[in-house]
C-alpha cells in the first residue's frame, strides 16, 4: 500500500522543528521583561530561551533522527508523510509567504478601516437624546385654541434645530393642567403641516426664556385640523389622520410643568387618538421616523428602530 518513492526524506537540511519557536518566545519574554523592569519575567524567558536553544542545537547537529525513527515505526504516520510527499506544493515557502502577506495585509487594513468606518457610522447612532425645552409660562396658552410655538430644540446648534409645536391648553383635568402638544412634522414624509384655520399673525409674541433663546408664540382661532402642503395629508384637531398618505396620527411631545412654565421633554409617536382634549386616549409608541407604521400589519416591516 505504501509505495517507496526515491530516497526517503529530503537530501539536506534539518527536520522541521518547533524548538526555534520556543527560542523566539523565550527571547521575546526576556526582552519584554527587561523593558518593563520585571526581573522574574526576564529570568523565566532566559531559561526558556536557553533550554529551547540547547535542544534546537542538539537536534540540528544530530539530524533529529530520534523522532523521525519513531514516526517511521507506526504505519499511520508513514502514510501521512507519504501524503505530504504527494503534494509538495502544500507547504512551500512561497505559499506560506503569500498567505502571510494576505493575512497581515488583511489585519492592517482592518485595523485602519474598522475605526474609520465606525467613525463614519456610529456618531449618528450613539448619544442621541433630547434636551428639555422651556416654551414659556402656561398663561400664554389660552384655553381651547391651538398656539403655534416655535423654539430651538438644541440652542447650541442654532437655527437648524428650530422646531414647531401646536399647543392647546385643554383646561384642568382632575385638578391638573392638560395640554395637547402636536409636532408639526407630517408623519408622511416630514414636511411642516399647517393649521387649517386662522393664524393670528398680528398677535405673534416673543416670550423671553431665562437662560435660553426666546420662544415665538402665534395664537390661532377656530382650527379645524392640520394640512400638509407637500402631499396633501390631512389631520383632525387631535392629530388623527383624516385623508391623504400619512400612516399614523401626528407625533406629540411629552411635557411637564416646572415653575409655571410648560417644558417639552421628548417627542413620541401616536397610532391613533380616541376621544378629544383632556379626555383623549392616546395610543403612544416610542418615537419613530415619519412614514414608519406603528400599528396594523405593516408594523412588522419595521421591527427595529435606531436609538434616538
Amino acid at each position, binding site marked *: 500500500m505504501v509505495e517507496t518513492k526515491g530516497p526517503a526524506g529530503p537530501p539536506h537540511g534539518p527536520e522541521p522543528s518547533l524548538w526555534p519557536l520556543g527560542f523566539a518566545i523565550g527571547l521575546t519574554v526576556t526582552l519584554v521583561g527587561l523593558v518593563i523592569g520585571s526581573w522574574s519575567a526576564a529570568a523565566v524567558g532566559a531559561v526558556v530561551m536557553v533550554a529551547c536553544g540547547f535542544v534546537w542545537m542538539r537536534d540540528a547537529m544530530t539530524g533529529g533522527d530520534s523522532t523521525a525513527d519513531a514516526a517511521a515505526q507506526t504505519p499511520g504516520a508513514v502514510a501521512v508523510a507519504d501524503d505530504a510527499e504527494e503534494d509538495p506544493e502544500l507547504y512551500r515557502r512561497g505559499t506560506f509567504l503569500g498567505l502571510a502577506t494576505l493575512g497581515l495585509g488583511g489585519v492592517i487594513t482592518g485595523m485602519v478601516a474598522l475605526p474609520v468606518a465606525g467613525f463614519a*457610522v456610529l*456618531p*449618528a*447612532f450613539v448619544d*442621541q437624546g433630547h434636551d428639555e425645552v422651556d416654551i414659556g409660562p402656561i398663561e400664554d396658552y389660552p384655553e381651547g385654541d391651538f398656539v403655534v410655538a416655535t423654539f430651538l*430644540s*438644541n440652542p447650541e*446648534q*442654532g*437655527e*437648524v*434645530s428650530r422646531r414647531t409645536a401646536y399647543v392647546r391648553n385643554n383646561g384642568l383635568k382632575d385638578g391638573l393642567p392638560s395640554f395637547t402638544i402636536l409636532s408639526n412634522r407630517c408623519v*408622511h*414624509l*416630514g*414636511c*411642516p403641516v399647517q393649521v387649517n384655520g386662522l393664524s393670528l399673525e398680528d398677535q405673534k409674541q416673543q416670550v423671553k426664556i431665562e437662560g435660553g433663546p426666546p420662544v415665538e408664540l402665534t395664537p390661532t382661532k377656530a382650527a379645524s385640523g392640520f394640512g400638509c402642503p*407637500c402631499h396633501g395629508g390631512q389631520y383632525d384637531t387631535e392629530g388623527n389622520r383624516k385623508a391623504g398618505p400619512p400612516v399614523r396620527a401626528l407625533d406629540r411631545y411629552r411635557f411637564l410643568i416646572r415653575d409655571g412654565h410648560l417644558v417639552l421633554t421628548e417627542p413620541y409617536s401616536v397610532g391613533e387618538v380616541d376621544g378629544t382634549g383632556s379626555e383623549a386616549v392616546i395610543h403612544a409608541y416610542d418615537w*419613530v*421616523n*415619519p*412614514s*414608519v407604521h406603528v400599528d396594523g400589519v405593516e408594523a412588522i*416591516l*419595521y*421591527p*427595529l*428602530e*435606531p*436609538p*434616538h
Partner: protein
Amino acid sequence: MATAAPPRKRKGKQQQLVGLLLYPLDWLEERSGIVGGVKWFLFRKVPRDSSWWHTLGSATLTAFLVQAGTGVILAMYYKPDPDKAYESIQHITSDLTLGWLVRGMHRWGASVFIILMFFHMARVFLFGAYKYPRELNWLVGAALLITGMLEGFTGYLLPWDQTAYWATVVGININASAPFLGPFIAQFLRGGAEIGADTLARWYALHMLLVPGALFGLIGLHLYLVARLGVSSPPWSRVAAGRERPPEEPNGRTGLTRGKRV
C-alpha cells in the same frame, strides 16, 4: 538634378521637424508605453455607419467633466456650515466675479448630466447594444446612473434654502420608509436622529468626495470596457462592426472552465 534639389531639402527639413516633435513622445513611450495606451484607447476602429446617436455617451462624459471642474472651483467659495452656507451661495451668485456663471453651469449642468445619461441609456437599449458581450458594461452603466442620481440628491441640499432643506427632509424620509433597514439608512444620512449641524457637512463630503470618487472609478471601468469591446453597429447595419472578430473556434467558445482548445 538642380530642379530636384530644393524639394529634397525641404523634405529633409520636414523630417527633422517631425523628428523633433516625435522625439519626446518616443522618450515617453519607451519608458511608460503611454503612447501605445492612448492609441489603443482613442484610435479605435468604429462601425462605418455609426452616427450621431453614438455620441451621447461622450456628451454625458463631457457633462460630468463640466460638473467636476465647476464643482472644484465652487468648493473654493462655498462654506458647508448651517449658519453660513446660504450666505456663501448668495455671495457666489451676486458678489463674486463670474460666480453667477460658474454656479449656473453647475446647477443646470447637473440636470443636463442626468438627462444625457437617460438619453444614452435609451440609445444603448434601443440599439440592442447591451447584448453579448457588453452585458457587463450595461451593469456598470446602471451603477453609474444610480451613483449619478445620488450625486444630484446630495448636491440638492447644499444651497441650504427652504427648497433644499424640505426636499432633503422628504428624500431622507423616503429612505426611512424602506422596510427593515430604512430607518437606519435615514439616520445614517441625517448623521443623527434629526437633521442638525452635522448633516450639511456630511452631505457636502458625500457630494464632493465620496460619490464623485465612485463616479470616476465607474466611468474608468465603463470606458475601459468600451475600448476593449468596441462600438456596436446599429441594428439596421448591413456591414460588420469596425473591428475584427476573433477566429471561430471549432469546438465552440472556450474559457477558464468550459471547452478546451484543440
